[in-house]
């Protein structure tokens, strides 16, 4: 498989997986108690959510694609490109979850992407 395809899977499958997981967790509602037993209860409810499983499958695919990429290319090449996930994530959060991505948040996201690129190029 080509590098571009693998990278596409890492970014798009990874992000849509996380968006689905977010959807599952928002359905469960805000967690208020952090006792181990309460957390286990939340995890149990999450595992009964369709969105959760819809999210875990692409996340696993993205994880294995990332391992493949890392075994072929340098980390300093792979990581800056995967930083695109932050942009794709903000777009998907806006369109699929209805989150409000204000100008300030957008600038923050873009700075994070730029910073990750610099950290790995440096």
């Amino acid at each position: 498989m080509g590098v571009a395809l693998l990278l596409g899977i890492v970014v798009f499958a990874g992000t849509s997986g996380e968006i689905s997981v977010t959807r599952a967790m928002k359905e469960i509602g805000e967690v208020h108690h952090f006792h181990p037993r309460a957390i286990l209860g939340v995890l149990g409810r999450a595992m009964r959510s369709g969105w959760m499983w819809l999210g875990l499958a692409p996340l696993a695919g993205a994880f294995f694609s990332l391992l493949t990429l890392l075994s072929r290319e340098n980390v300093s090449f792979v990581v800056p490109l995967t930083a695109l996930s932050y942009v794709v994530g903000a777009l998907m959060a806006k369109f699929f979850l209805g989150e409000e991505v204000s100008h300030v948040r957008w600038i923050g996201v873009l700075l994070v992407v730029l910073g990750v690129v610099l950290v790995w190029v440096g």
Partner: protein
Amino acid sequence: MSLARRVRLKTYVMIALMILFGASGDVLLGKGMRESGGFSIASPASIFDGLRRGFQNDMVWLGMSSLIVFFICYMLVLSWADYSFVSPASASSYAVVTFLSWFALGESVPYVRWAGVAVICLGVFLVSRTPTRTTQEN
């Protein structure tokens, strides 16, 4: 403490835990996999073989457990906070890891990388100025 403040505080605590367990999980897993002879995705058999060797290494188990704790924290914080808030905010782990590798491991860090750390911190600071949640609880 006001409700909004309490939500913000627990968001920050969860993100800090994500950074702690995510970064140590990555380091332990990477170290363990290299120790156990690397990982190759050339064929299903080689993936299976890599996993089998990996599971005989304590460091791999420790790394995986750490990543599971990371993922649970991630799930919990997403039950109340925006994805577009948590995801960029957790990028501060790059800054933490760079700082630790310089401070604790004595690695030399090039200027460009410090510049990257500064830009990430600025980006995370801006994101943290926005509301943690912009959707309604249903």
